[in-house]
């Protein structure tokens, strides 16, 4: 009997508690077989959110499920911060991103995109009482709130660098950025139009959107660079649901008719 034996016992207890932690988990995001792990940031309705029961819901979720059904894939969604999605894809923790991801040349260097599936673009949200800011030309000296890692954040940073915006505050989710605007701490929120529209529709009276759409773009699904096998399947599934009208059905489910139209 020695201290060593006592330590061994403690290590055994520690390893047991470790294993207890393991047993309930699914340890790997396997790329084998037909199951794909899809990363998303679910505070972005109507594209992705979680319902009361904790299920992923939204336009992107339904669309990915529809594509997967056509292609015989099994899908598991994973909740990740928006600015961690691309790193998680690159390191293999997820196989695909479906998270209202705008197609940009810069991101194309890091991921491979599917065909575009919806038109988006940025719009500027201001307080309802604001009578000064009418277009993006009125942003001189103003402050903006944005979601970290979004195209809106990139736009805001560019405007700040160019000396237009005075300050840019970055938040992990869109609702927090909107809150910053609603309580008057910033002058504008620059964010994807469909999501801002959903926010304004649900929370009338505090915030309004400017008519102007800046930097019109499209959303795409993203896979790891060089994963052509998955990309081919996704694109094939996407064109099938475009052709048979089920994509249109999903759009009508989540958007008012006005937003179903391209916002360009």
């Amino acid at each position, binding site marked *: 009997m020695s201290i060593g034996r006592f330590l061994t016992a*403690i290590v055994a207890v*520690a390893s047991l*508690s470790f294993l207890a932690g393991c047993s309930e988990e699914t*340890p790997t995001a396997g790329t084998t077989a037909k199951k794909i792990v899809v990363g998303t940031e679910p505070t972005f309705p109507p594209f992705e959110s979680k319902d009361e029961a*904790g299920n992923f819901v939204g336009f992107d979720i339904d669309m990915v499920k529809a594509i997967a059904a056509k292609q015989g894939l099994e899908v598991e969604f994973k*909740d990740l911060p928006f600015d961690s999605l691309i790193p998680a894809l690159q*390191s293999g923790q997820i196989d695909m991103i479906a998270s209202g991801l705008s197609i940009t040349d810069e991101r194309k260097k890091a991921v491979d995109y599917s065909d575009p599936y919806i038109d988006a673009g940025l719009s500027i949200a201001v307080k309802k009482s604001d009578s000064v800011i009418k277009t993006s030309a009125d942003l001189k000296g103003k402050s903006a709130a944005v979601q970290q890692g979004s195209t809106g954040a990139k736009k805001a940073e560019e405007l700040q660098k160019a000396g237009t915006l005075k300050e840019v505050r970055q938040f992990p989710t869109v*609702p927090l950025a909107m809150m910053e605007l609603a309580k008057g701490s910033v002058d504008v929120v620059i964010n994807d139009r469909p999501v801002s529209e959903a926010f304004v529709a649900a929370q009338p009276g505090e915030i309004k959107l400017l008519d102007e759409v800046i930097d019109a773009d499209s959303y795409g699904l993203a896979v790891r660079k060089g994963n052509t096998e998955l990309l081919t399947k996704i694109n094939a599934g996407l064109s099938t649901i475009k052709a048979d009208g089920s994509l249109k059905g999903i759009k009508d489910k989540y958007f008012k008719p006005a937003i179903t139209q391209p916002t360009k």
Partner: protein
Amino acid sequence: MPQEYLHHLGAVLPALLRGAWIAVYVVVAAELIGVSFGLIIALLRLSKSRWMNIPALIYVDLIRGTPMLVQILFLYFGLPSLISAISGRPWSIDPILAGILALGFNSAAYVSEVFRTAIGSLDKGQTEAARALGLNRLQTFRFVVLPQAFRWAIPPLGNEFITLLKDTSLLSVIGVAEILKEGQLYAARTYAIFPTYIGIAIVYIVLTLTIANVLRYVERKLKVPT
């Protein structure tokens, strides 16, 4: 307005309680690691051999010298991409498991200091008397030192447990559906931000007050010296 707040407070509660269950599960599992590994570290620190006490000191310094949020992000995002890069195969870790490990090994550093000071504060006469009575070193530790040290350690350990419970909120950044994350998800689908954060605060208060009272009861029962 107040009715609407009350409505949201009621509506967000089921989600927050689901998150509370996850938080408690994580913190209990993490504290099991924290106490067992923390005790090992404390014994290594108290060892006279440099080969034992220097690595333990480095561990404590590294953990205490870096923010827990950074450790969580390192374990969940940094380590898998490092392993993937080295092995060439995608590797990932479950967020709840990553959370338990990050919180557990973080807590171990603080717990080791609690045990080290508790063991160190015991009168030398206790050990000497036990040895004089014919107990060997392990028996002395097991039957004389550890029970007394553990009693001394209970109040700071309880403190650590409450701190760790609140620290589970940091796991929202890696997508663990604990209390804060469930609240954020609710706020995202209902746009009701203020009542949600009030609800979150209430759930934490209820949990920490419950634990504090359980601890007070345990302290009374064990007649913890004050």
